[in-house]
């Protein structure tokens, strides 16, 4: 697997001033949120590398004599892949820097949370975050990093390295928190996380030296998800615009491979021919040149530069209307702009490049669920032509294209290969270990989709056995994150409560647990706090089918179990009532002796 591609998408003062948005509104909530962010980062990192996670969470009060809210040290250890030395400062010292921006399922979303926790720790205690990272299990690099909030950049306070015996990451921050209030939530969080991550070992040491240990229950991990093209229903104008720019850039960038071979292709003697020499020779051999060589020539001509210079720059964009080439000069590490001349074969070639691929191939190459035939039908539906060049679409065309992609109904449902459900067997083993029930059944529904985003429902029902609670208890998960709050308005609860459990022979106070897991590339949360799932009809329907399936299974179990009890009850009833009936009818009939009913009582036993 290739190394993670890190890229910075943008900074942080805003969050310093609006930390409520990310869940850091008070010491209770902040401590809880910080725990979540670090634990989820560790689990995500392990998942993506196929490592069975060992995560240890430690919370210590820095000064035991003080009252809550007070300063705590929060440390999370994992056995994940670690982060390469050079990425550590940016990963922990920059807001919105991360590796999770592709279209696939992950717990975190924008690399925002962990840095927010660090930022919150810093502004309440002014202490740096400490990071120990080992990517090879041999050497660990340790850092102490403060954030320069105004500039959104890390300030390294200390840095060192030492020999270690284990790969992984340790992150430790000081922050103001209130464990007396946040404690029960954090314990719930750890417990439920272990349930939905049965292949992980999770340990939690709390400030009172209690140790909560959840050992891994199974040693196989679910398949990691893959990154895939977007579904046409999930894109807007801006996304399409970006895809077109990207397509053009991809188109142009092929020239780079041709640069070292330029003098060969042109049959030039010099190692580094001048642009004049290149242009002159290329004009004559034009018909015989490959496209990428033509591009390299055209750019040399446009920039009036030699081959060596061409090797040191990256073309960012070409703007025909403005007549400009934008490129990045690696020598001076700066973006530069040069004018583009307006005629000749070289210019025509560039014009063609900018015009870009044809609509038909654009659609089939850059979207999922669009094959050649679907593309043709869609293009007809939208009123375009297959051979139209996407680089020449004007604004009106773009909006029309976007609207049509949204409204065309014959695309297949989104491809679920970007999802990573837990799987029936792991869920079953997890629930079995956690609840030790008399009855247990799980189901994974097939993939479905809402608004272009694929999702999968997994669900399990456990009944009886060691379950002590009365009434149906529902655990809710989304992308392997437990949802602990705002139960009231969640779609899962709605579905569970709407079921007529009596029909399935389940009583009001049954000792029963339901675990529900929604996986999606985008969970439709109702609030920023990510605590409840909105009731999209597609999701509601799948949840309902899952509950009904499990309820039917439970119902037949209850029937089997009920038969034996029934026979016993019947015998008891007869023994109680038949003698009374006998007594009353004897007096009514004016008899002295009661009728002979004893043998009837035995009937009850085997009816």
């Amino acid at each position, binding site marked *: 697997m290739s190394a993670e591609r890190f890229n910075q998408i943008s900074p942080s003062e805003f969050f310093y001033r609006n930390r409520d948005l990310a869940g850091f509104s008070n010491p209770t909530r902040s401590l809880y949120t910080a725990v979540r962010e670090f634990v989820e980062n560790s689990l995500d990192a392990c998942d993506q590398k196929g490592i069975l996670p060992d995560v240890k969470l430690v919370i210590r009060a820095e000064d035991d004599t003080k009252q809550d809210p007070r300063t705590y040290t929060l440390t999370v250890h994992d056995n994940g892949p670690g982060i390469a030395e050079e990425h550590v400062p940016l990963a922990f010292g920059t807001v919105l820097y991360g590796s999770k921006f592709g279209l696939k399922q992950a717990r975190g979303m924008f690399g925002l949370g962990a840095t927010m926790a660090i930022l919150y720790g810093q502004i309440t205690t002014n202490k740096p975050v400490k990071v120990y990272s080992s990517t090879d299990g041999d050497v660990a690099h340790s850092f102490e990093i403060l954030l320069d909030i105004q500039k959104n950049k890390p300030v390294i306070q200390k840095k060192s390295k030492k020999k270690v015996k284990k790969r992984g990451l340790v992150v430790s921050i000081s922050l103001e928190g209130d464990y007396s209030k946040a404690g029960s939530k954090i314990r719930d969080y750890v417990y439920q996380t272990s349930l939905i991550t049965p292949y992980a070992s999770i340990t939690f040491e709390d400030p009172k030296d209690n140790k909560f240990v959840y050992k891994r229950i199974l040693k196989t991990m679910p398949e990691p998800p893959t990154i895939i093209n977007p579904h046409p229903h999930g894109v807007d104008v801006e996304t399409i615009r970006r895809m077109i720019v990207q397509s053009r850039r991809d188109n142009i960038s092929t020239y780079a491979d041709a640069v070292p071979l330029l003098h060969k292709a042109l049959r030039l003697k010099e190692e580094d021919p001048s642009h004049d020499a290149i242009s002159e020779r290329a004009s004559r051999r034009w018909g015989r040149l490959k496209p990428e060589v033509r591009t390299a020539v055209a750019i040399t001509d446009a920039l009036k530069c030699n081959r060596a210079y061409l090797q040191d720059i990256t073309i960012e964009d070409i703007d025909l209307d403005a007549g400009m080439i934008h490129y990045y000069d690696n020598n001076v590490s700066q973006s530069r702009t040069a004018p583009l001349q307006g005629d000749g074969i070289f210019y025509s070639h560039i014009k063609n490049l900018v015009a870009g691929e044809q609509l038909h191939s654009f659609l089939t190459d850059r979207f999922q669920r669009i094959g050649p035939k679907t593309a043709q039908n869609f293009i007809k539906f939208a009123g375009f032509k297959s051979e139209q060049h996407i680089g020449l679409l004007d604004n009106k065309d773009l909006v029309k294209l976007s609207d049509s992609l949204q409204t065309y109904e014959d695309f297949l449902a989104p491809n679920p290969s970007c999802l990573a459900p837990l799987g029936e067997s792991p869920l079953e083993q997890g629930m079995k270990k956690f609840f030790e029930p008399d009855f247990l059944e799980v189901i994974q529904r097939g993939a479905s989709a809402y608004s272009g985003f694929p999702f999968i429902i997994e669900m399990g029902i456990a009944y009886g056995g060691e379950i002590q609670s009365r009434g149906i208890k529902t655990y809710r998960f989304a992308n392997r994150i437990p949802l602990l709050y705002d139960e009231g308005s969640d779609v899962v609860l709605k579905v569970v409560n709407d079921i007529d459990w009596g029909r399935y022979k389940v009583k009001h106070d049954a000792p029963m647990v339901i675990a529900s897991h929604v996986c999606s590339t985008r969970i439709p949360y109702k609030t920023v706090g990510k605590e409840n799932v909105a009731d999209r009809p597609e999701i509601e329907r799948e949840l309902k089918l899952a509950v009904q399936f499990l309820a039917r299974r439970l119902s037949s179990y209850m029937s089997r179990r009920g038969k034996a009890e*029934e026979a016993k*009850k*019947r015998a008891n*009833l*007869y023994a109680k*009532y*038949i003698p*009374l*009936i*006998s007594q*009353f*009818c*004897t*007096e*009514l*009939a*004016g*008899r002295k002796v009661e*009728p*002979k*009913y004893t*043998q*009837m009582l035995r009937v009850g036993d085997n*009816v």
Partner: protein
Amino acid sequence: MSKSRAEKKQKEMLEILKKHGSRVYDELNHGSFPVFDVPSRSVSNIVYDEKLRQYILGDSSAQRSSKNTAQVRSFTQLMWLAFFANRLTQEKKSSTLRDVYYSSQAFAVDFKNQAESNGIIEDLEAVLTKPREDMHIFPEERSSIFGDLDIEYTVPGYEGKRMNLANHPDGYAIGPSLTSAELVDTSAELVIAIEKGGLFTRFVEEQVDKKFKSIIVDTGGQAARSTRTLLKRLHDELSLPVIILTDGDVYGEHIAMVIKSGSANAAHLRELTVPDAKWVGVWATDIERFELPTIPMTESDIKRCQDLKKDPRYSHGIWRKELDTFLKIKRKAELEAFSKYGLTNITDRYLPQKIELARSL
């Protein structure tokens, strides 16, 4: 004559109870689980009988089996009640619905609550097609009667004693002894059933009994079954016409209808109706005619009006017309409203008109 009637009733009841008892006894003795056929009292089995002019039960009935685990308990309760009714009837003791509920506890056939025990009583009524009063189970509600009527008691200790019901001007409570008494003689030519105790006193005070040769009955709101039985007997045995005066509202109209043709929840009994009874007021049309002080009808009054319009008994004649008028004017008036014109206005002016009217109907 007096003895024969009460004793006949008693004998009949004892016989029917014994018949059922013997049947159950024999079945048990043969090792089969006894059952009862209980006529269904569900709404779908209540039909209006045009000929009888009352609601009756249809043919549908449900088997209650001692074999069925869901029914054995209520089967036993039904048997106990028959057994208990048998004792009451033999000993000529009266009891109330509440007594029945508590009495069961001595026999380990405890009812969950009063509603359950009342339900079983209705079941037995339906099975025997006899009202509970015949089993000596009486309601607690009391209504009163006044007027020149000689009766002869049949209850223990009073057998053969006579009483004239005009002697006590506050009226005589209608209880088990009056319901079971023989109606011997009267000079009255009319029975006036009136909804309210206050007006009853007024009528007695204004000597309506003498002025209009009538027997006055206070129904105390919706007439209890013992009151309806007495009205029926006054009509049937003494051939007295019965007229009914109620408040001028939809509930008053229905009080009159129930006396005339029974209520849906006593559809299993047929001795409680006075089909010839006449409702003479207060009509909705009277409200306008006499310019009575009124009260606006409530939402539930209006709802009740619309519900009653679906009842076949209200589909024609005065019954329909007055309902429509209520719905039109959306106001109601009480009997006391006549006091606006003086306390005796109702007896001096309104009543004579209405009696006249009743005669002409």
